């Protein structure tokens, strides 16, 4: 098992109080698994991605653990995390277009970064060039400044750079949201290729675009208001969702929704709850068409099928 996350809790500090961005998240990831992490914006999916590699200034690790390849990740300890970053956990950030220092040639920046991490640029350069060519870039980009590359090229450079040290876990954070449809597909395929070629062992693909992640993920997790509400093989989530929120999310999806034939696009009425003081019981209750008395209690985690878990009172086994 590559990654085992237990009851992870991360809070966001604001002037109004702590926002419970991750409120008891548990899941595991197999070697070679690509898991898609979906949900509306503000549900905590980006926080989950960040907390596995680097909490930003206002995030606080409150509880829970993450074990990667048998070693616990020191999530709350920025300094101790540093040794694990890039080599064991890596990220392709949302902002790939601006992730490279604009005043350094890409090759020079890579060399300086590698040297700072105690690696030799010279011995890794061959591999770097090979991987750049794999994504359709020539060695010449190393002599370019970021501004000389197109958005798609920068994205590919960042993908190669992030995975250069063959990390166990890669977090791809909304990597396709800034791209057009053709590029989206290419990037998604590249992610799969990286996994297949062993550049990364397992991968968490954070996205709000279910239809895209469906094409590449083995497993999909759906988050709502700081918690995972449903986890199952990708096919199952789309074809036979159990949680009312997942169903609504699928219903709100144009492309995949079409596969259902007469299933029409419908948006989910209402807004997710505020996470300053999260409500007790099921958090989707207020927007849920099926909500009843029992939903005021914490919903149970129901295993409906092998690898298919739902946190809902209404999930019939």
């Amino acid at each position, binding site marked *: 098992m590559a990654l085992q996350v237990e009851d992870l809790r991360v809070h966001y*500090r*604001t*002037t109004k109080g702590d926002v419970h961005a991750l409120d008891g998240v548990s899941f595991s990831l197999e070697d070679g698994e690509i898991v898609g992490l979906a949900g509306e914006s503000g549900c905590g999916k980006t926080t989950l991605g960040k907390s596995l590699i680097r909490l930003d*200034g*206002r995030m606080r690790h409150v509880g829970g653990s993450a074990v990667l390849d048998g070693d616990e990740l020191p999530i709350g300890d920025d300094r101790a995390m540093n040794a694990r970053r890039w080599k064991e956990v890596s990220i392709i950030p949302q902002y790939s277009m601006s992730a490279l220092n604009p005043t350094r040639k890409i090759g020079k920046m890579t060399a300086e970064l590698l040297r700072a991490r105690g690696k030799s640029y010279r011995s890794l350069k061959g591999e770097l060039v090979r991987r750049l060519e794999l994504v359709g870039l020539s060695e010449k980009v190393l002599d370019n400044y970021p501004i000389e590359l197109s958005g798609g090229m920068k994205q590919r450079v960042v993908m190669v750079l992030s995975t250069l040290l063959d990390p166990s876990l890669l977090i791809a954070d909304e990597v396709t949201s800034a791209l057009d449809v053709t590029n989206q597909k290419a990037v998604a395929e590249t992610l799969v290729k990286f996994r297949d070629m062993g550049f990364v062992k397992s991968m968490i693909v954070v996205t709000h675009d279910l239809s895209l992640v469906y094409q590449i993920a083995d497993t999909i997790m759906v988050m709502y208001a700081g918690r995972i509400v449903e986890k199952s093989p990708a096919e199952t989530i789309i074809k036979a969702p159990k949680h009312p929120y997942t169903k609504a999310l699928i219903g709100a999806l144009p492309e995949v929704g079409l596969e259902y034939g007469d299933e029409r696009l419908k948006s989910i009425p209402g807004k997710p709850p505020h996470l300053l003081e999260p409500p007790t019981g099921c958090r989707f209750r207020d927007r849920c068409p099926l909500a009843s008395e029992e939903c005021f209690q914490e919903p149970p985690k129901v295993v409906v099928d092998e690898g298919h878990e739902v946190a809902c009172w209404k999930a019939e086994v």
Partner: protein
Amino acid sequence: MSAEAVLQTETVGKRNEHLYFALRNPKVAIGMSVVLLLLLAGLVGPLFISADPMEYIGPKSEAPSADYWFGTTYFGQDVFAQFVHGLRSSYLVGALGGGIAFVIGLTVGFTAGYRGGLVDEFLNMITNVVLVLPALAVLIVISSYLEVRGVVTQAVIIGLFSWPWVARAVRAQTFTLRNRDYVDLARLTGKRAPQIIMREIMPNMASYLLMSMILLFGGAILFAAMLDFIGLGPSNAVSLGTMMQQSMAWSSLHLGTWWWFVPPGLAITAIVGALYITNVGLDEVFNPKLREM
């Protein structure tokens, strides 16, 4: 319509929130207090002290005392009387000079940014020219030709030469705002350019405009003080700059009459410094990210 109503209540809420945080921000509170206190001194002071600050009323070069709070000049003028009158001129120059620069900068910036094309090329060129022109040197030449110089004339010529950076910034921001959806919408509904600029674009950079106005105000005061010090101050009024000039001209340094040159410089530093600090505070208010740090 309902969406518009929601939008409006949201901006109102935001404004109230800004005011709330502005009043609670210590930098804004301290800065504004200093500025207002000295303004009050400049407004009220002259009413209670002799109307003519140039009048020879007492002993010469006397140190501060209960009678003459800031002492007297080489000629026996009351330094405190000159000081409060000088404050008045400084605020006037700041408000008027800064105001003129603000209006010009805004007009040029909005026009260039909104119209684009050749108009923009032309205005941008002028802006860049005035930007590299060493303003003080030009002001010196112009003022020296004036036979009679007043606070107002001084403020006007200062205003005429200190607008370019505002124009530049406003132009850049207008560029990014003019293609937003709500601006397009306003254009489609047939609103005219000035109306769109006033109603749709300006409110979205209000915080920035307020802060530039404050900087221009402070800048005009400093400019005026330098002109006054070279002897190009108002010929009919006292200013903080002319006080320093006079004290140097009548060898205050060697006579040790420090009370003549310390208060005016200190007042300028206090006003301008307080304005800058207010600006830092406002920045924290308008950028919640800074507020939370």
